[in-house]
């Protein structure tokens, strides 16, 4: 079957999708977006977390067919989403931002330092990345948390990230990273 949906702001189409394929498989193997990870494919580890119509879900548990016509944001789209978010809180993109708008080239591009979403930069700065396999899922989940709650307590952070497993860090520096991103968000506002 053919599945058409918006990924990271761009409409994408995948053909010859088997009916039983998960959204995760379609993203990784058919759309060239391997950022979402396949650590368990059972909804236990959270490494496949994406936003589906703004809501964080485990993409390994979502049938590709259920995504038809909807909007998906993956880790590869976090930086752009953060940039757009700056204008979304008011009545859309501000004039200043619009002046700086440029057409995005087709295809993925490695981000330059400074082009990362705040949560991404915070993860790097806080030492929250070791092997990094859990990182994409955590970033999507943490980004959603901070969007919803700009001053989370430690208990709030732990609860929000409870569905994301990490085997390398013991989570301490991940907590540091989320606090750092929240604090930086405060500075900007």
């Amino acid at each position, binding site marked *: *079957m053919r599945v058409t949906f918006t990924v990271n702001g761009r409409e994408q189409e995948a053909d010859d999708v*088997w*009916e*039983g*394929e*998960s959204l995760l*498989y379609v993203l990784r193997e058919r759309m060239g977006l391997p950022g979402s990870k396949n650590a368990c*494919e*059972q*909804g*236990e580890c*959270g490494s496949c*977390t994406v936003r*589906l119509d703004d*809501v*964080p*879900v*485990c993409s*390994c*548990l*979502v*049938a590709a*067919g*259920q995504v038809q016509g909807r909007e998906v944001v993956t880790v590869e789209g976090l930086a752009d989403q953060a940039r757009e978010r700056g204008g979304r809180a008011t009545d859309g993109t501000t004039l200043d931002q619009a002046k700086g708008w440029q057409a995005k080239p087709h295809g993925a591009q490695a981000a330059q330092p400074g082009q990362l979403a705040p949560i991404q930069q915070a993860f790097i700065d806080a030492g929250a990345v070791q092997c990094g396999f859990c990182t994409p899922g955590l970033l999507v*989940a943490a980004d959603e948390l901070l969007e919803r709650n700009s001053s989370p307590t430690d208990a709030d952070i732990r609860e*929000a990230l*409870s*569905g*994301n497993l990490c085997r390398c860090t013991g989570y301490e520096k991940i907590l540091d990273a989320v606090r750092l991103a929240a604090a930086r968000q405060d500075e900007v506002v």
Partner: protein
Amino acid sequence: MDLGTVTQMRDARRREQWRPGDAYLGGGTYLFSEPQPHIRRLVDLGSMGWEPLEVTPDGLVIAATCTVAQLNRFTAPPGWQACHPLIEQCCRSFLASFKIWNMATVGGNICNALPAGPMISLTAALEGEATLLALDGGVRRLPVAEFVTGNGRKVLREGELLRSVTLPTYALRSRTAFRQGSLHRLGRSAALVIGRHDPADGSFTLTVTASTPRPVRLWFPLPPAAAQLRAALEQAVPPGAWFDDIYGLPEWRRHLTLRFAEEIRAELTTAPVAPGEE
């Protein structure tokens, strides 16, 4: 994970012949987490557009497609004291996190019929009645506690679908108490016990789930004494009948259940503290 044997996704609005290997798809959080070699076609209920939650004169009607997240956000009308905090407590008893809440459905959880299904616990404890629709249009209703008959077993017939669960007003006006134990944070429940004390007729109902393969309900015309409750529970779940899996030994589940039952009994037989009093 990918379900390799599935060859077709169908929109549930188009009524078609039910075939062996068909399965209804709610949120997908259970279906897609395990291999399903017997399933060939998925019938997607997402497009049915059922209203997730409706307050009616009969009580609360929860559509099968209502997600856990939607249920958790429900604000009860005044007088329905059973809803808070019980609904949130049950939602939090899921084996997993917010990401599951966003996709998992009440109906899906009930139809999986696993002992630790918190939606089974919630709806059975609140006297929920399931409405089942057959493909020929026929309608059946039965209590949720009778709908689930064992570990993964329910009385759903071929092609029949769970449309909704209705929680009657009298149950929603009851006072409830909740206890749950699991090995670890967000682990699958080893025992989940809910008590309901009906202010209208004084009756006391205890619903045991997760530590037994199917819900076990004990009803008393008036709140029992501790020894009476314990005896009734031991008789209702004899040795060998406690559920056994990697989430807890049967002996430990029994231990938890007995303790929880007593705590609930004690809580519900103590007059509630009115706001402002301490």
